[in-house]
């Protein structure tokens, strides 16, 4: 049955929230390998890996990193089924659509309707996308968001940016819930299907109401911040302490990243 605009939007919003719940639960899994690694190490190391994968011109090297990611996922108690559902399948569908025509359209040595070059380029695209997204998913699934934010400070990201990022994440869920509630209430008050013009008006009104609420919320939050002493400077407290094993992990990430890029140069 074709879903209405409201139903589709509700589904989308709810999906976003359930992935977030999954990520939080997964990050709290104490027995996982990656969960215990210093967030700063994970951030820097995984970024290096993604860059290495991006720079590499060797399919097998990129494939090796993908396998490494799968291994790390298993070691960190991340269910491969979850990874497949939330990460691998969507990327396959999206990149697959892009890569498939390239198999036939790319000029080169023909085999059947496809070309060797076409197959190679499709392989690169798919493998790079899947590997990169696996690495970043591992980062998110094994690190608490608040720690991730604090780790970004180490990368010299401005404090105010990190604070805004943190606050955005926090209010994202409030907004998702509000939007969901608005849609659900409309759904319960709608009999039959609305014509497109009405749906558009509904959509823009929803957006407008959400915007008004956002503005009011931000004014109130500003007052609450001032009430507890905020006067324009933002400070963050972190409790990171790198141990020897963290440095080992960092070394591992960087060596692999360099190797992938070098092998495929």
């Amino acid at each position, binding site marked *: 049955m074709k879903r209405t605009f409201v139903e589709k939007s509700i589904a989308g919003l709810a999906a976003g929230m359930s992935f977030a719940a999954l990520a939080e639960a997964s990050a709290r899994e104490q027995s996982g390998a990656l969960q215990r690694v210093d967030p700063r190490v994970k951030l820097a190391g995984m970024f290096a890996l993604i860059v290495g994968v991006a720079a590499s011109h060797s399919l097998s090297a990129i494939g090796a990193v993908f396998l490494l990611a799968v291994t790390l996922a298993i070691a960190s108690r991340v269910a491969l089924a979850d990874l497949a559902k939330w990460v691998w399948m969507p990327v396959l569908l999206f990149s697959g659509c892009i890569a498939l025509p390239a198999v036939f359209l790319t000029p080169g040595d023909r085999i059947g309707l496809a070309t060797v070059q076409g197959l190679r380029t499709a392989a690169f695209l798919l493998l790079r996308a899947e590997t990169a997204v696996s690495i970043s998913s591992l980062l998110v699934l094994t690190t608490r968001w608040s720690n991730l934010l604090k780790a970004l400070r180490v990368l010299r990201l401005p404090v105010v940016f990190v604070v805004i990022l943190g606050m955005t994440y926090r209010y994202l869920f409030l907004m998702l*819930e509000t939007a969901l509630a608005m849609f659900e209430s409309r759904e319960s008050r709608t009999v039959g299907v609305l014509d497109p013009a009405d749906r558009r008006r509904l959509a823009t009104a929803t957006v407008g109401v959400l915007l008004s609420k956002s503005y009011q919320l931000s004014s109130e939050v500003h007052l609450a911040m001032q009430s507890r002493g905020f006067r324009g400077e933002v400070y963050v407290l972190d409790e990171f302490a790198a141990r020897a094993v963290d440095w080992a992990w960092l070394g591992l990430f960087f060596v692999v990243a360099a190797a992938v890029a070098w092998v495929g140069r």
Partner: protein
Amino acid sequence: MGGPLMFRVESAVFRYNAVVALDGVSLEIEEGKRSVLLGANGSGKSTLLRMLDGLCFPDSGTVSFRGAPITGEHLEDDAFAHDFRRRVGLVFQNPDVQLFNPTVFDEVAFGPLQMRWSKAEILARVEATMRTMEIAHLKDRPPHRLSGGEKKRVAIASVLVLDPEVLLLDEPTAALDPRSQSQIIDLLIGWGGGKKTVITATHDLGLVEDIADDCFLMQQGKLVAHATPSAILNDEALLRVANLIHEHRHAHGPAMHTHPHVHRT
């Protein structure tokens, strides 16, 4: 009778968008007293509370804290602002406004961070406050995964951690389940005996006698009465005028039966 004067408000007028929120209010709050600002929604009690916390300033009239005027300019002075923000704390009605950090720990630590306390002191005070408010187990929880009662406790903790002399609370029991409500009420009772100066804004008549020694009745931006809680609660006519109770009429055969009626929220 009481101690030195904490707050003095003289003929404060405040307009917001063509609405007169405060229409010439004058009152005095003594140190160590527990007071209630009693009034229906729109009576101006929230505005007055915010004014006492230096979040908005009167269009005419004055507000002062321990003899020092609370004005925008005065709060630009670092020393005064630092002192004032620590000594006076406001718990907002809507906890979502007050919980803007990624985790509960960060939230409680926000105030001390703004006060530039040392890391060791911050950690110690935050841990102690979280234990007092029974939220230590929620330390790493993001705010969107807290129940209403938990959010309220975190909000209170985030203010208490600074050990303020004055606690301002805006509708502290609103939208809480009965158990959470009684926990808050116990807290409010516990602050009696001159330990802190507490000013609670509420329209909940059932709350008043337990938590306050002094009651200010507000209606449409004006202070209409100042007496002990029991005196005000027993004055039905006054309560009706202030829109805190209403008359409920039903028929018994040919006779009409009227009795005053109050809704508990």
